[in-house]
């Protein structure tokens, strides 16, 4: 498989990279982990004139927690870094659950969370996770930085709101106000397969009551789905069989799956329902165990 001809640049600073993107005039693509872009190049589904490789730019491969609890993930932080992260395993259960389910170990060694958000594949796992967490993307352009909520960052299949000379430099999970809980479940035919369906749930509780909830759905629509109504059904009350059932019903209604070789639309909707119930029931069970 031989890609079309392209120019390759590997700048050493963000300013240079942004400059190159501007001169590329919309025909340039940023190369970070390359786990989606390179296959597209080989298949000639993508034929950019310029590749701007950001791997030589220092200071982008971090993930950390600010003192207030905000989690920041740099543009060159690999999935494998997140999979092994004690930051996530000790404090961010939704992300910790998703990290080992991203693609396969080989992809996880190279691919990046920020790159996955930019790629905006409706079957991408991180977009649902970040949607559930109310995260945002920090984009840097010639005029400085701006912050875009993930739910608005992705506009459709393989589409995001970045300007042609903007680079997504960081993903941010806002500091929680209560106790966090959550999970991510994904049905795949095989390790490394795209999700038949996936569900990300993130909640915050204060005492018995849920103070914030987010539910993101993977692979059951033209883009990542923010199941707003399902999440709302959980807020302001304790978790119960009744509220779990309502949230699951509403999440299944929010799904817009299509029948394909991974499964029927009806089945995928059923899986969304099942996974919402499973994630929330496990939260209830572990709370009961702790009590």
């Amino acid at each position, binding site marked *: 498989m031989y890609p079309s*001809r392209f120019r390759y640049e590997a700048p050493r600073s963000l300013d240079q990279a942004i400059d190159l993107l501007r001169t590329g005039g919309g025909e340039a693509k940023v190369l970070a982990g390359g786990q989606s872009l390179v296959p597209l190049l080989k298949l000639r589904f993508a034929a950019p004139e310029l590749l701007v490789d950001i791997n030589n730019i220092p200071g982008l491969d971090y993930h950390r927690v600010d003192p207030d609890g905000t989690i920041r993930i740099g543009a060159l932080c690999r999935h494998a870094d997140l999979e092994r992260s004690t930051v996530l395993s000790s404090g961010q259960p939704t992300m910790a659950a998703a990290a080992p389910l991203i693609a396969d170990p080989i992809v996880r060694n190279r691919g990046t969370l920020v790159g996955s958000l930019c790629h905006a594949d409706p079957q991408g796992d991180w977009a649902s996770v970040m949607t559930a967490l109310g995260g945002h993307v920090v984009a840097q352009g010639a005029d400085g930085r701006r912050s875009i909520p993930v739910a608005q960052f992705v506009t459709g299949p393989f589409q995001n709101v970045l300007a042609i000379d903007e680079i997504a430099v960081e993903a941010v999970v806002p500091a929680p106000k209560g106790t966090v809980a959550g999970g991510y479940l994904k049905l795949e035919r095989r390790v490394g397969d795209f999700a038949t369906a996936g569900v990300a749930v993130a909640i915050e509780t204060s005492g018995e009551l849920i103070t914030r909830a987010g539910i993101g759905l993977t692979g059951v629509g033209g883009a990542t789905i923010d199941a707003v109504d399902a999440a709302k059904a959980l807020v302001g009350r304790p978790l119960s069989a009744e509220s779990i059932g309502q949230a699951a019903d509403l999440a299944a209604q929010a799904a817009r799956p299509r029948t394909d070789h991974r499964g029927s639309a*009806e089945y995928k909707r059923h899986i969304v329902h099942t996974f919402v119930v499973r994630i929330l029931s496990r939260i209830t069970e572990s709370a009961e165990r702790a009590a």
Partner: protein
Amino acid sequence: MTQALDEIKIGGLGASRKRVEDNRFVRGKGNYVDDIVLPGMLHMEILRSPMAHARIRSIDTSKAWAIPGVRLVLTGEMMATRNLAWMPTLSYDTQAVLATDKVRFQGQEVACVVADDPYIAKDACEAIVVDYEPLPVIVNPRQAMAEGAPLIRDDKENQHDNVVYDWEVGDRAGTDRAFEQADLVSKLELHYPRSHPSPLECCGSIADYDRSTSKLTVYMTTQAPHIVRAAVALVAELPEHMIRIISPDLGGGFGNKVPVYPGYVISILASILLEQPVKWIEDKTGNLISTGFGRDVYLRGELALRKDGKILGVRMHTDADHGAFFSDAQPSKFKIGLMHSAFACYDVPTAHLTARGMYTNKAPGGVAYRCSFRVTEAMFFQERMVQAAADDLGMDQAEFRRLNFVRDDDFPHRTPFGFLTDSGQYGKCLDVGLEAVGYQDFLRQKEEAKKEGRLLGIGISVMTEPLGAGNSREYDILGIKMFDSAELRVHMTGKAILRTGAKSQGQGHETTWAQIVSHELGIPAEDIVVEEGDTDTAPFGMGTYASRSTPVAGAAVAMVSRKIRAKARKLAAHLLEVSEEDVEWELGRFYLRSAPDRGVTIQECAMAAYSNMPDGMEPGLENVSYYDPPNLTWPFGCYIATVEVDPETGVWDVLNMVAVDDCGVRINPMIVEGQIHGGLTEGFAKSSMQWITFDEEGNCIGSNFMDYLIPTAWETPRFELLETCVPSPHHPIGAKGVGESATVGSPAAYVNAVIDAVAHLGVRNIDMPLLPDRVWSAIQSAPSG
């Protein structure tokens, strides 16, 4: 007294010797077609059809010709001027090399470009403008047979429908009578979906025509180099002695590299036209959408049963989807291959099979993928029908099988379809498997689990299969009989080179063939080098597929070794100054019967063959053997899977997988186990996730490894391997084929296990692959689901 040689220590029969070829493979030093670079070599790329069925209005190649570095652009029209637009297939049909009139499947070869590098060739392919007029598309046999269906093969005179063949075998009247007398008739309809062998290395060739010597050398990914040489001689009308086919290291084959593909033919023509070497390397999508696939057969099966469980008769009807050209690479005179080997392990009085083949707008082929010419489908259908029949009778799965097995003392046994099985111990094989899996205990666990709402299931599959085509009476390719060959040359120091007409694609011939020589002559295996794949140096043979290497070429290796031993005996008598009758043989040594301490080694005999031969004896110690087996070999096996099905999601997990294989005498047990591991994994893949399907427009879903799934170590279950050993009665060392056994036998075990888990809800069948959504919807729509 001299110490007798330890056969295992010298790497003889039964030694789990490490594979000698792996030394270069694991170091990245293998030499595959794509590794070969010749001076002045050009690169070829094929333009494939995006449409499944369309008339070609025009092809404009002017933009491609205009790209710097492009040396040649070929279309079907230009091939036709050399009478090469079409080529014969191994099933006596024709196949388009480059399309002239219309395209008949997505991925069909339409044009090709030869250029200075592969990037330019690819760019130039994209610059070719083809004007297609879309035609209605047929993607399954039902559509192909429908009233008013478009005619796919309008190129063929006298072809007025989409039927490839209508064929039958067995006793129709006798079978009808058996069904009239039956207490119960068990019916089942099944589909064995299309799959693809997907060797990691795709197909490719480098054609190198040298005008000065008139010699054509082709490096090619082929499992059967001599057949290709014959085909090229016949199709391209080149003299056979001026054609040299070299099949270097192969990155897997599984049947995919038996047919002759358009890419090979075009690269040869391009090299002849340009007088430069031309390399063609297929990409993964090209391989998946255009080359030899496996299966795609629909079954209507019926068993006539007596109420005590005895099978009285078998009726089968199959509809096979052959794609656009009938290009099955199989050597039998039977149109549906060895489908009628079904029920060979059961004592069935009468049987009848009707088989219809249909053209569709899909890639051609049908018997590739580790199946021994549709034995895979035969045994899957058999064991699914057997399970359904046992359920219909309310009988225990194991007991029903045991009741109907051919008895151990009933050999040779003529099957109702006419095969002659020569040995087997099916009951014992089943018992070994049942004990290993803890059958009765599992049945109790299953009932306990049901009370908690958990679904456990157990699936059994027992079969015997005909492996190792041929014999020459019944099997041939283009008239060439299915024998095979070995040539052994023992050097003066007792080291040796062995060449055979087979061609390893990962089977480990370099290791195992040396072990057979070692067993016959006592020469340490490490002293024997094995070479295959070069038609200028190897003796004529039919190649490696259908698990035929050990049954045929392996037998030839034993036979040629015995010829060498016979000559060495004369040399030994000469050295010992006695007559030949006074000489005895033990491994690696001849000795005097009357004085066992006095002897000479095989190495001393080898030296004498070049330095001290008796008067009148030809010097040298080499020979060749062509072996025509008296029968197929009949390995048998029992595969038992236990599973748990999640009723909420339809996801199922394998709890245990037990395989009991009887392949007779094992040359290298480690390699046999590797073959079985691979086969069990492929069986798991097909039953759980793997298929090539098509949408209504004939677009291939499964054109890359994101959609066509190969299981990883993560989801592949653990296997427990066991064996019994009934040697083949006719093979020189008692060995039988094994390469395909687990691929053939295991799919039914996995499927039967899942069906067993949900049968009480009223589920009778779920077609492969048993994706979670299919299992879930089967449960949902079942009477008690």
